[in-house]
């Protein structure tokens, strides 16, 4: 048996540690060794990555004009 084998069940709990670069050094190699050949793991990891990307896209929603104007008015009022 390899000294540290990370099962798929364990992997799903470790994905965020890995992506955050917070995985202990001794876990990284077994983690990646298994991603290298196990399609479901690789698929799961990729799906988490895509989920993060989609979530990040919410940041792109523009400030609506009305809110923007209201904020700019704060400045105008302040300066008076």
């Amino acid at each position: 048996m390899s000294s540290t084998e990370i099962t798929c069940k364990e992997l799903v709990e470790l994905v965020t540690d890995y992506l955050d670069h917070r995985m202990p050094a001794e876990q990284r190699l077994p983690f990646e060794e298994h991603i290298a050949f196990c399609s479901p793991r690789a698929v799961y990891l990729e799906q988490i990555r895509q989920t993060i990307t989609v979530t990040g896209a919410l940041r792109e929603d523009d400030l609506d004009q009305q809110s923007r104007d209201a904020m700019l008015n704060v400045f105008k009022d302040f300066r008076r």
Partner: protein
Amino acid sequence: MVRALREGDEAAFAHLVDAFGGSMQRVAALYVRDRAVVQEVVQDTWVAVLRGIDRFESRSSLRTWLFSILVNIAKTRGVRESRSVPFASIADDPESGEESVPVDRFLGDDSAWPGHWASAVPEWHRPLERLLSTEVRTLISASIAQLPDMQRKVVSLRDVEGWSAEEVCNVLELSETNQRVLLHRARSKLREVIERSGLQEN
């Protein structure tokens, strides 16, 4: 930027509004439910920023300072508000063990492959660019709103607003480990939401 603001440069202020305004609304909404109150929190923050800009020391970044003001104001208003309209509060203990993926998706200890996937993880066939559609984004946005309170806050600040782990830990007063556990649960949930929606298929 700070100097320009101190000198009353309107263009500099507009620049700040464009840079942070949307984010400020979203972050305020993490604490406060009523749309009108969200706007008030944001406006109050701008006033506080303008009032305090002369005293601002550039030791921390302008962004960090601005958002710490926002969060303080939002928290206060949020507490006041929750006495009448509480957020659904589901127990959200980072210490409790909770699985990201249902246990039955893995083979048991008596099988030839304990802990391995029982069946293939269904692939997402829609390419990423098309996953960024309005439909999916709306779904994710709604799903985030329904997460337990701390998971909602962590995933919003980390993955929507792009704050660092350190910033989030400071603002939410969480240990790094707890922050990561909460983030992980939220992400797992959102992944599952996409998987069950059918929107990841062509």
